[in-house]
């Protein structure tokens, strides 16, 4: 592998890790917000328990989204300084808005939500999780604006060897954005739905004491997966026309072609399965009662993650050898003089640390699922700021 290949692989590995966690964040955020709203409106303790249990899964998952996202942001400057030199005045704008407005607010409101239990009035507390959801979707929007520009560089002209912004509106209405954004967001809902479904199936299969909790959760998971899969598949097929117009040879390579086939196979089979089998079985809670089906639900839980990564491979590898399609090649965008030692060192560091933390995070999510709603630390009572009194010493 030469330096360009190593830098590309590093970006692919950190980017894929990032999206594995982000896709679940995007799916779980609105579900947790809806659960919290139902609790705030009805005061029903079941909804409080659902908010805290699924909220904790959401928050544990969120940590790795942050860690991997930090590396993503800095990696542009580390490995691909040619991108900012050539297209930074256009591509940088949506990224700056994403970090300065969307993520800034998302992280601030998430902190208020996580630590605000027993402290914020219920209405304001619910508002926080809705603001987290809204700003997470705004983040997804701006990142997809930036990515779509790389796929199809609209709204700009080349002047003196650099791209200059001419029409920001064209970036926001990029044909490579308008179907891809709902495709990605629906894939998030689908993934979130499957995780809720798989975890519920685990508890129902194990016949734990939380039957009502997980029967209701299973319903939420299946309905969410149904909505998500319907729109993911619809907005997936809708992109073929755009790709044909803007990147006609996108699927010609081995990796994009294979990944496209894999994504469509998983997507189509699961979408039919959810619509024609799982959704009807919600009648009279047959799905919750048919225990023999639960291992199947657990086994298919990872498939939307696989499809999501395959989807990104299609989109990104299919753009090669271009970084900015038709204008700047990946090789030309690489930081001049980047040494093999530097890229290998950082690759080992990032992949090692993030890979290990990702593994730990998944084990922690599995642990939280296994322990169930009875032992949730999110929303536990605060503790007094006073130190525990020292035991009196006496003879």
């Amino acid at each position, binding site marked *: 592998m030469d330096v360009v290949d190593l830098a590309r692989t590093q970006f692919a590995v950190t980017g894929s890790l990032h999206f594995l966690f982000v896709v679940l964040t995007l799916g779980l955020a609105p579900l947790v917000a809806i659960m919290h709203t139902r609790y705030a409106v009805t005061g029903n303790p079941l909804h409080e328990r659902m908010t805290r249990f699924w909220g904790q899964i959401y928050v544990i998952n969120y940590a790795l989204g942050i860690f991997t996202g930090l590396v993503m942001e800095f990696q542009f400057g580390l490995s691909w300084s040619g991108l900012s030199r050539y297209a930074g005045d256009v591509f940088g*704008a949506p990224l700056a808005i994403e970090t300065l407005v969307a993520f800034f607010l998302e992280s601030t409101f998430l902190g208020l939500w996580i630590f605000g239990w027993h402290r914020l009035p219920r209405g304001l507390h619910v508002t926080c999780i809705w603001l987290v959801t809204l700003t997470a979707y705004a983040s997804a929007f701006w990142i997809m604006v930036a990515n779509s520009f790389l796929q199809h560089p609209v709204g700009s002209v080349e002047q003196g060897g650099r791209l200059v912004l001419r029409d920001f509106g064209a970036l926001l209405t990029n044909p490579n954005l308008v179907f891809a954004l709902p495709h990605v967001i629906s894939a998030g809902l689908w993934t979130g739905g499957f995780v809720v479904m798989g975890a519920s199936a685990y508890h129902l299969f194990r016949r734990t004491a939380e039957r009502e909790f997980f029967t209701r959760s299973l319903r939420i998971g299946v309905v969410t997966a149904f909505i998500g899969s319907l729109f993911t598949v619809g907005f997936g097929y809708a992109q073929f026309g755009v790709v044909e117009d803007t990147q006609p040879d996108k699927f010609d390579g081995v990796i994009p072609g294979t990944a496209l086939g894999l994504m469509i196979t998983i997507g189509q089979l699961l979408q039919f399965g959810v619509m024609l089998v799982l959704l009807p079985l919600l009648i009279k809670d047959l799905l919750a009662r048919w225990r023999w089906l639960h291992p199947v639900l657990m086994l298919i839980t990872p498939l939307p993650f696989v499809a999501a990564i395959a989807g990104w491979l299609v989109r990104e590898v299919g753009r090669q050898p271009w970084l900015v399609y038709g204008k700047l090649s990946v090789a030309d965008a690489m930081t001049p003089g980047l040494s093999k030692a530097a890229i290998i060192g950082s690759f080992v560091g990032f992949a090692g640390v993030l890979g290990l933390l990702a593994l730990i995070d998944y084990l922690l999510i599995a642990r939280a699922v296994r322990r169930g709603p009875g032992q949730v630390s999110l929303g536990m009572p605060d503790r007094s700021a006073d130190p525990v009194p020292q035991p009196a010493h006496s003879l």
Partner: protein
Amino acid sequence: MEIIWFGALAVLLLGYFALEGFDIGLGILLPVLGRSQEDRDRLVGAVAPFVLAGEVWLVALVGVLFGAFSTLEGEVLSGLYPLVVALLLTWITRDAGLWFRRRADGAAWRAVWDGAICLGSAGLALTWGMTLVALARGLSAPLLSLEGVVGGLVVALAFCLHGWTFAAWRLPGDPVVRGARRTGRALALTALAAAIPAGLTVAVVASTLIDHAAPPETLTTMGAIVLPCVPILVGAQVWVWRIFSRGALPTFF
């Protein structure tokens, strides 16, 4: 417009040092001030609600560097390559310690992640000092130098002072700070002390930054979207400080 975006960059960097400085400083001091597990839990509980609202200042800073000073972004980050990699790895290590320390039971588990908080914070402070020195000296100078190490120690000391003051302000009279009490004014002063190294660097590089600002179309477009949001950004930050400055300690981190 260049001046406004330079101001934004400067505010974000100084804000990061003032608002993350005490998190990082307390992280370094965690084994020193928190002799028992119970003390460490209270120190982390005091600082926890401020971390998410503090570290976004740096995320936003790099975003602004990319959007408003794009010709410098790649040059600066790749010019500081080993320092940026170290900064990311130590930052992630510190954050992982915070997020994971209470996610499983057992004294050993929590001790490992408390160690990650301490080592990550120390590495982060040292890396920041070296980064500031490298920026001030210009990227052609060697990254690893005696000045850089001294800069790292100065930043680490300033953060420790800020962190200690935060603890004495948030947990007044507590045994972890040997019964000390500090006012909000004292905390503001150590915030200033923590931000001074960053301020000096910004002053040195100011003219270079302004010369490399993006063209007016880019700056105006971003300004039109970002400026109306500024009151919300500020309001959210103020809200965090109003909610979590007093009272019981959250237990999630």
